[in-house]
């Protein structure tokens, strides 16, 4: 490490110079390589899986009563009679031009379907993420501090059990319970449909509740771990105020691990939207994918999975870069 000492101060200024000739170059190259590999894998696997699922898209379109000849014509029109490798080639060429294909059932481009439906899904996932963060970070920190100082012993020791139970609750159960309590019994919020923020609250809560419990527990553990470090004791002996201690020493150290899991949680929230949109009957991409699977609409299924996968991969990339900025140790893998 003595060798890095000489050049280090000069390189500090400016992000651009920081990237060149610093650990950033290797770090970003590794991450981007990962993104490309994941997307390639996703494209191939989705393409294969939709075709391995039993069922015939043509039969779905023409109906059960139609004759064999009619089915054969539709199959031909959809290009399903061609060999698999040629279908894949056509799909790849389309992708290269930004064309996600055309829906088997509606005849609309998949991209226009996504532009209508994706915003709702993203809005739902982001609302859920906001709920997760707003609950988990303050609550986790508070419980961690209380636990470390031996306050409210009953509350802190039962916290772990409660968090496990809530964290294990699937979206559809959380959603059903929430609808029963807030929509049917209390009549505060609409059961489904409606517009504006009130319509978003219950679906967002139903997918946020389990990840919020998991993240709260993580923040609690991290807070307690950081508080038991010597540097906290040393800082306390300087008579720093509690706020100052938390903001300067605890939160920055907790945030790194929270962010790592936060990215994974956001990805999980995207998955949760599929369930929530169906439970609450919302016209988003998550609801559409279920219909598309039932109708064996290969281009739609492929398109939705690819775009959601792309979003997930980008979220992870953003998290990785943010982590690198916050904590240079991750760049070289030097984190203890």
């Amino acid at each position, binding site marked *: 490490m003595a060798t890095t*000492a*000489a050049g280090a*101060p000069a390189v500090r200024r400016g992000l651009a110079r920081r990237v060149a000739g610093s650990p950033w170059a290797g770090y970003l190259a590794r991450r981007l390589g990962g993104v490309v590999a994941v997307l390639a894998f996703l494209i191939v696997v989705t393409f294969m899986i939709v075709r391995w699922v039993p069922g015939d898209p043509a039969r779905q379109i023409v109906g059960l009563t139609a004759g064999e000849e009619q089915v054969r014509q539709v199959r031909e029109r959809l290009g399903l009679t061609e060999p698999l490798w040629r279908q894949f080639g056509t799909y790849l060429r389309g992708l290269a031009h930004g064309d996600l294909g055309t829906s088997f059932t509606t005849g609309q481009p998949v991209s226009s379907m996504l532009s209508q439906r994706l915003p709702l899904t993203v809005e739902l996932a982001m609302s859920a993420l906001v709920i997760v963060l707003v609950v988990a970070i303050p609550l986790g920190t508070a419980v961690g501090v209380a636990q470390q100082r031996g306050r409210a012993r009953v509350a802190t020791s039962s916290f772990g059990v409660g968090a496990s139970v809530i964290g294990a609750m699937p979206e559809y159960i959380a959603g059903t319970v929430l609808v029963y309590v807030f929509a049917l019994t209390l009549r505060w919020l609409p059961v489904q449909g409606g517009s504006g923020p009130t319509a978003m609250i219950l679906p967002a809560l139903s997918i946020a509740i389990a990840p919020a419990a998991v993240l709260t527990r993580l923040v609690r553990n991290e807070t307690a771990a950081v508080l038991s470090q*010597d540097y906290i*004791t040393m*800082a306390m002996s300087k008579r*720093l105020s509690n706020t*100052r201690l938390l903001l300067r020493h605890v939160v920055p150290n907790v945030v790194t691990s929270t962010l790592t899991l936060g990215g994974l949680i956001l990805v999980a929230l995207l998955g949760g939207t599929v369930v929530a949109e169906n439970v609450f009957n919302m016209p988003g991409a998550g609801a559409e994918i279920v219909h598309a699977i039932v109708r064996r609409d290969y281009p739609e299924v492929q398109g939705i999975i690819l775009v959601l996968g792309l979003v997930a991969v980008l979220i992870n990339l953003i998290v990785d870069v943010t982590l690198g900025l916050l904590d240079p*140790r991750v760049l070289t893998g*030097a984190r203890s």
Partner: protein
Amino acid sequence: MTHTDESVLSAVGVSAGYGSGPRSRSVLHDVNVAVRRGGTMGIVGESGSGKSTLAQVLVGRLTPIRGVVRLDGTDVRRLSRRERFAARRRIQLVPQDPYSSLDPRMSVERTLAEAIDPRGRLRAGAHRERITELLESVALDGSAAKRLPHEFSGGQRQRIVIARALAVRPEVIIADEVTSSLDTSVQAEILELLLDLRERLGLTYVFITHDLAIAQYMCTDLSVLYLGTVIEQGTTDVLTRPAHPYTELLRDSRPDPSGRSTPAAAGGLATEDAADPANPPSGCVFHPRCRYGPRTHEDRTRCAVEPPILADLLPSRERRAACHYPIKAVIQDEEGP
């Protein structure tokens, strides 16, 4: 060293422990230690003997159950809140682990600035000169200021921790096993640095270690702790000519690099012999392991019943031991013709 009036820091009859109620754990029992100004008081003993607890008491982080801590002869409990805070700044602790004692997310500069100015009253750049001065005093380059702890080795981290302790211009440094997590060559550097700082800044040290060679090298005075009691005290002569059988055992169980004598051959410190600190033996706490005690001498039943007090052995008052039958060599040497 027995005269409290010339000592800068002293523990008088201190008993201390952790927790309260039925789950409390008593660690120190009636400990007397006086630290001479400008001297280095070594605290040696096995793990669990209460060395670190004594450090916590001296630095003011742990309040004793009984007994007092005196700073310049004044009972720290008598001080006002403000005075007590000022007193705390005069005594600084350098903890054992240089990894967990530095905030991994704070640059060296910020860590030192926080020590100099904990409330952040002054502008961020106001401490630059002082920070450079502190880094120089621990032989680190000024360019270290902008870097994060993970960019440093263990020895360099320990230098930063020492610089942080020096930031408030303390009189007494309590060094708790500062070299035990470092490589031998790095240990030597840190020890030299501490000796150098003692000369230049007129510091007083309390030096806690389990390594007798280091204790002998660093210290002017020594206190040997066993199960939370001081069993022998004196100048570093304690280690070369022990009066207490336990000190003798400690000395003899040092591995001999030549390989000619092993700790086991010296009747050494097998761990199964070690007593439970929470439940010390009756009488002299060391008697079940003592090679001169009731185990070998049937007439010395007194050891198992009556706890010995730490008494002066020499007219010069330079040696005290808590033993009913101290090893005679020390006394005879001084009294003899």
